[in-house]
């Protein structure tokens, strides 16, 4: 839906899932490949269990607003499936690609029994329905398999890299950026998780 080659990416999830860090990581990774990068964050509710979004705009034509207009996202990175769907409804369009973690985080009105959390299959089906390409996986479970549930975001980064949507978001740039945040074993595990993610996209 974009008029130019710039990419509009929304990272969505629940406070505490590493949303803001992931946006920053992708942004910093591609700073040498793109003239313009903006990130618009809503993190007031960040670690208080609310919905959190980061708007990431990347490209070589002038970018003004750090907030992506309605229906104008090219890629959604969903760290929680209901949040993916929520953003698809507001920012989606017929060309949108979504990468989503299927692991739910139960909102308090579901805990209290006021409303139901949708069935796993329903969520998958709806995310598929509103996306041109949808990758829905339990990245948290995969993360646990590779050593820690928090590795999920690095696997997701790998998937995004493998889809080749963001110019310059490759293994080399990812590694150079994540080095600033982690070292030793943690760094190694994150890079390994990233590569697993890249591998997952080979079928696309």
């Amino acid at each position, binding site marked *: *839906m974009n008029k130019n080659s710039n990419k509009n990416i929304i990272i969505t999830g*629940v*406070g*505490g899932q590493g949303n803001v860090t992931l946006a*920053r990581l992708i942004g*910093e990774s591609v*700073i040498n490949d793109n003239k*313009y*990068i*903006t*990130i*618009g*964050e*809503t*993190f*007031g*509710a960040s*670690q*208080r*269990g*609310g*919905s959190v979004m980061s708007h990431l705009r990347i490209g070589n034509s002038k970018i*003004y*607003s*750090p*907030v992506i*207009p*309605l*229906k*104008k996202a090219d890629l959604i990175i969903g760290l929680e499936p*209901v949040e993916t*769907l*929520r953003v*698809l*409804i507001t920012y*989606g*369009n*017929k060309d949108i690609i979504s990468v989503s973690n299927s*692991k739910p*985080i*139960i*909102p*308090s*009105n*579901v*805990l*209290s*029994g006021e*409303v*139901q*959390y*949708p069935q796993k299959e*329903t*969520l998958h089906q*709806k995310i598929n*329905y*509103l996306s041109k390409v949808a990758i829905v996986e339990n990245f*948290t479970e995969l993360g*646990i398999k590779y050593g820690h*549930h928090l590795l999920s975001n690095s696997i997701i980064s790998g998937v995004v890299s493998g889809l080749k949507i963001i110019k310059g978001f490759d293994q080399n740039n990812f590694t150079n950026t994540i080095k600033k945040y982690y070292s030793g074993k943690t760094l190694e595990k994150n890079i390994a998780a990233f590569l697993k993610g890249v591998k997952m996209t080979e079928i696309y």
Partner: protein
Amino acid sequence: MYSISEMKPFEKKLMMGNFAFARGIIESGASFAAGYPGTPSSEIIETLAQNSSKTGMYVEWSINEKTALETAAAASFANQRSVCVMKQNGVNVASDFLLHLSYSGTRKGLILIVCDDPGALSSVNEGESRHFAKMLEIPLLEPSDFQEAKDIVKEAFELSEKLKSIVMIRSVTRLSHASGIVEANEILKQKNPPYFHHSGFILDPETGPVMSTPVTYRHQLMVKRMEECRSFFKNSSLNRYFGPDNPELLIITSSVDFLYSMEAVKELNLEKKAGVLKLVLTNPLPEELINEYFLKTDSILFTEQVLPFIEEGVKNIYADNFKLDKKIKFYGKKSGHIPNTGETDTNIIINALSKIFGIEYSNSDEEYDKKVIETAFSNVTPGREMTFCPGCPHRASYFHLNNAIKLDSKDGFICGDIGCYTLGMLPSGYSTLKTIHSMGSGTGIASGFGVLKKYGFDQTVLSVCGDSTFFHSGIAPLINAVHNKSRLTMVILDNSGTAMTGFQPHPGEKNTACGINGTPVMIEEITKACGAKTHILDPFNYKKCQEKIPEIIAQDNVNVIILRHPCALSPQRKNKKYFEIEIDYEKCVGDNCGCFNFCTKIFKCPALFLNPSTKKPEIDKTLCAGCGFCADICYHNAIIKKAADNE
């Protein structure tokens, strides 16, 4: 740590607006910074503090915004470039001093950076700070993007030094908390030995005493100062125009609305018809410049955040312009083209422009829209209310307080204020908070309720306030309550830091902003000295709290309960569990228990949920913080806690 002090000139970095401000402050050679934390402003002082060992800057988290501004002013009086940072409601707190500071004037450059929160993304108000600049007659600058956020700081210092006045910079959430690429400049070295000259002639701005009197004389200087400011900005390149020479429609804008306006004009292909005049100096408004633009267009649209500040100012200039021989049509908040509440965005401006130009704008695809509507109406996106984190001591505290109020059966309630614990108004805090206003106001209101006993008022009154809030503005109302023999229980939810904004230290702690040893001032010593009976409890000590709190709140005097336990996200607790929690499914009988799913439906910890197929609770181990409170509340002892093994 974000090492912005090490950036070389021309080096580019992806920077959050608040980092850009911080870099601008460092580049300007400021030697003093003070503030009180508040979203979206906190990262400025935080970043300056983190870089202080390299820059040598004195950085302080002050007790409140008024004191922050007073300390920063002292540095200016002693010939140091100095900055003070706060969120929008902070200016209300600081405004009494700010009024007098406007009269007294300043010496070396002094800047006040205020971060407003249009749409109240992380506030309990969407207060507009720009009117303070107008009311108190001080210059106001509004940067519109990330690079400008950095560059404006230097300009503001120069302006402050030229006018001998504090200069206010207004940011908004979408600038402070958004990021863009910023290029660094050189760091200016300022070396002035601090000295306060005070023995000169009373009216000498350099050597005399610094005070707001003689009032009318000083006020005259203020009026002159604003005139001087206007002429200083006459040829400034900061106010900029983008568009055709004679636009059909002129958009006058400031701050991030400039970005939204430019994008909206581009999106509608109106580049040849609409022009955008971006104002950076918005108090005093650049009158001459605006008068020039009146000659170039017949219609003006104002795009700005919160109140119609520029809109009213420009209309004033229009009314004063006797030479103008034409009528201009104005669009904005007054005409209903831009909403009066909430934040603006590109879509809002696209809608306003479509209406004005009679364009039908549509970026939708019929088939996709149908799918969206179908999905939206299929109940697959349950709302997500904010909630206390797993392991949060506030959830346990509200659990106890709610129980005690219910047991007391006098229709009791809690008066609250601002912090994570504001969520006590929501179901996750058992909806126990019934008044929420400014910092510390819960106890002030409770003090008022408590004295109504004279007229037969006998509801149980409690107030809550956080540890940082206690220092900020909780002490005065407590003294008021004690002195006037009110009846209330003040609950101080002490989670060891200013948790909501990212664990900035407060006067109760050993650390100061720069990590050097401060002198901790103990909350309980203060409350006792105020004459309030003081009880200290750990909210995770289930038994003791359940026993003591009902006793305390039933008393007919002023009591203080300090519920003390560090925040689950605090550095000392983060990623460390006290307990591993398991559910003993032999003991848990689920729906047949008679507890009405107490641990899930009532307690509402995000890490403990009811599995709809088994009808039994389940622990989400990726979320559980291992506080163990759920084990204490289970009637059947079916939730087991075992001491955790933290590597």
